[in-house]
C-alpha cells in the first residue's frame, strides 16, 4: 500500500509539472505582450546587454506564470506608466488622433490630387480630335515608310 502511494506520488510529481505549462521567453503569449511594451525606451535594445529589458522580461514571465492574462498585464503597466508604457498610442483622444491623422492625410491628399487632375485635364469636348492620315497614293505611303525606317535606324 505504502509502495503504491509512493509510486503514485512520484508519478504525479513527474507528470504535473509537464501538465502545467510554464511560460518562458519563447512562449507565444509572452512574445505578444512584450512586443507591445516600450520598456521605458529599451524595447529595441539587445536583451543580453540591457538590464532594464531583462527586468521587464522577467516580470512579464512571472505575471504570466502567476496566472495573469494579457489585458491584465498590459493594464498593470499602463496604470503604472500611463500610455507611455506602450509602444504604440492606445485608446483615448490621443490614440485616435495618432492613428487617424495619416489616413486623413491620404484622404485630403487624394481630394487635392483629384481636384488638381480635374483642373488640369482637358475636357473631352476641347480635346483635339485624332485625325487619321489618309494616303493620296501608294508612292507617298512608300516614301513615308522609308522615311520612318531611316529615322528608326538613326535612333537605334
Amino acid at each position, binding site marked *: 500500500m505504502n509502495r503504491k502511494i509512493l509510486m503514485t506520488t512520484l508519478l504525479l510529481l513527474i507528470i504535473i509539472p509537464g501538465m502545467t505549462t510554464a511560460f*518562458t*521567453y*519563447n512562449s507565444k503569449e509572452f*512574445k505578444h505582450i512584450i*512586443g*507591445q511594451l*516600450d520598456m521605458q*525606451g529599451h*524595447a*529595441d*535594445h*539587445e*536583451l*543580453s*546587454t540591457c538590464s532594464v529589458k531583462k527586468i521587464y522580461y522577467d516580470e512579464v514571465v512571472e505575471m504570466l506564470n502567476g496566472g495573469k492574462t494579457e489585458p491584465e498585464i498590459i493594464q498593470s503597466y499602463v496604470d503604472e506608466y*500611463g*500610455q*507611455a508604457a*506602450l*509602444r*504604440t*498610442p*492606445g485608446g*483615448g*483622444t*490621443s*490614440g485616435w*488622433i*495618432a*492613428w487617424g*491623422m*495619416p489616413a486623413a*492625410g*491620404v484622404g485630403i*491628399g*487624394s481630394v487635392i*490630387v483629384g481636384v*488638381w*487632375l480635374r483642373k*488640369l*485635364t*482637358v475636357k473631352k469636348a476641347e*480635346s*483635339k480630335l485624332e485625325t487619321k492620315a489618309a494616303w493620296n497614293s501608294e508612292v507617298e505611303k512608300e516614301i513615308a515608310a522609308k522615311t520612318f525606317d531611316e529615322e*528608326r*535606324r538613326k*535612333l*537605334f
Partner: protein
Amino acid sequence: MYLIGNISIYLGIVISLYGIIANIVGIKKKSSKWIESARGAVLSLAFVASIASFLLLYLLGTSQFQYKYVASYTNESLPMAYKLTAFWAGNAGSLLLWAFLLALYAAMVVFSKEKKNPMMPYVSSILMVNILFFFTVMALNANPFEMTDKIPADGKGLNPMLQNPGMILHPVTLYMGYVGLAVPFAFGIAALILKRMDSEWIKLTRRWTLLAWLLLTLGNVIGGWWAYLELGWGGYWAWDPVENASFLPWLTVSAFLHSVMIQERKNMLKTWNVSLIILSYILTLFGTFLVRSGILTSVHAFGDSNLGTYFLVFMAFMMLFSLYVVMTRYGMIKKDSSPIESYFSKESSFLLNNLILVAAAFAVFWGTMYPLISETFTGTKVNVGAPYFDKVMAPILLVLIVLMGICPLIAWQKAVFEKFMKNMLWPLAMGVATAIILFAFGIKGIYAIIGLSAASFMFGTHLQEFARGISARRKATKESILKAAFKLTVKNQRRYGGYIVHIGIAVIAVGVISSHSYSTEVLKTVDAGNSIKTGDYSLRFNELTEHTKNGNGVVVADIDVTYKGKYIGKIKPEKIFYETWPEPSTEVAIKTNWSQDLYVVLSSWENKDKVTFMVKVNPFVSWIWMGGIIMVIGTAFALIGGRPTTFRYQINKGISRVGG
C-alpha cells in the same frame, strides 16, 4: 595646430560672409569682377574647410588628447581606421564634415561648365549662407579644435557599436546625400528669384539630385546593414526618429524625381516641383535638428547638446525665405503649362505616385513627431514605436508597389484601356501565380502574401518592359538578344536605369515583407554538448572560450550548425568587453544563404558550460542588401547617361501650335 584649426573656422565665417556680399554687389552693379571674386571666395572656402578637416584627421590619427574632441572619441588602442572615422562620431566633427562637403560641392558647382550662367551668383550665395551657418555654429557652440583643461593619459575611446565598417560609410554617404540636396534647392530658388520659370534649373540639377538620392539610398541601406550586424536585436530598421529623418527626404526626393519628368515633358507642376525640392532640403535640416536637439529619444542622437536651437532658427529662416520667394513668384510659375489630356495617362499616374510618396512622408513625419505633439496638446505621453509605423506604412507602401507595377504600362498623354489591360496580363499572371504558389506551400499570413504578390507583379511589369523593348529593337535591327538588350538600355539610360531601381525596390520589398512576417526567434539556455533546434537548423553548443584581442576581453561560443540534418559549418558569436566602455558589445554570428539568415547572439552565461543564446531565422534578409545594390546600380546607370527631355515639351508645343 590649435591656431590653424581655429583660424580656419573663423576664416570660413569671414570668407563666406565676403562671398555673399561680393555676389550681392556683383548682382546689383552687374559687375563680373565682383562675381569672379565671389567665385574665388567659394574656392577659398573649400580650401579652408579642407585644411580644417585634414587637420582634425591628423589630430585624431596621432592621438592628440589635448584636444577635447580627440580625447572624447578615440583612445590609443583604437585601430587607425576608427581613429579617423571618429571624425564624424561626435557633434563638432560631423558639423565640420558637413561644412567640408558643402564647400566642396559649392566649389564644384561654381566652377562647372555652367559657371557663366546668370543663376550662378544666386546659387553660390545660397550655398554660402549654408556654409556660413555651419562655420558659425562650430565657432559658437561645437568647436572641434577646443582644448582640454588637463591632458588625459588616454582618450575615452569610440563607442564599440561604431567600430564597424558600416560606420565608415553610413554617416558619410548620408551626409553627402543631405548636402547634395542643397544644390538643387539653391538652383530652384535662384530660378525663382530670376523669374526663370522654364525647366532649366531642373536640367542643370538632374545629376545633383540623382546623386543625392543615390547617396541617401546607399546611406539608409548601409545603416540598416550596420544595425543588423552590430546592434544584436535581429532587425535592420527600428523606425527610430533619426532613421525616419533620413527616410523623409528620400521619400520627397523620390517624388521629385518622378514629377520633374512631367515638367520636362509638359512644362507642368512647376510650383509643385519647387515646393518638393524646398521641402526635401528643409527635411535634411529637420533631420539634423532632430539629431542635435535631443528632443526625441534616439539611438543616433548626440547627447547634451543645445545645437537644436541653432538648427531650428536656421531651418525657420530658410523656410520663410523660400516661402517668400515662392509666394512672390507664384503667379508666374502658374503660367505657360500645358494641360493633361486624359485622366488615364502616365501624367496622372505620376501624380498618384507623388501623392503616395508624399503621404508616406507625412505619415512618417507625423509618427515621428507625435509623441511631442501629444504631450504638448493633450498632455498625454505616448510612444510611437515600430509597430505603429509597420501598421500605418504597410498599406501605403503596398499601394506604392502596385502603382510601380502599373505606371510603366500606361502611355503618356492618353492611354487606351484595352491595350493597357493587354499589357497587364503577364505581370498580373505572375502576381497571381506567386499568390497561388505561396498558398500551395502552406505559407500563412494573407497580408504578407498580398505584399509578396504585389512585388512579384511589379517585378513582372519591369521584366516585360525590358522584354518588349528588346523584342522591338530586334525586329528593327536584327541584333542578337544580348546586343539588343545592351543597346536598348544604353540608348535609354534614364528610363531603364529607373526600371532597374524599381526592380531593386521589388527585391527589397520581398526581403522586408518576408523577414517581417516569417522571422522566428528562440531564446534558450543550453549545456555544453547539447543542441538548440529551430526550424530546419540544429545548433550544437560545444564550448565557451576566452581570449584577448586588441587589449579587449573576448568571450566566444563555439557552435556546430546542421541544416536539414547536414553539417554546414561552425559559427562563433562573441561578446567583447572593452576597457573604455561599460557595456560589452555583441558580435553576432550570421550564416547566410539566398533564402534565409541564421542569426545567433551570445546572450549570457552562468558558467562556461551553461550558456544562453538568442537564435533567429530571418528569411530573405540578404535580398534587402541585394536590392539596395541593384538600386544603386540602376541610379548610377541613370546618372551617367540620359539626356534631359525638355525638347519634348518644345516639340509638343510646336505640334499643338501647328495643329491649333
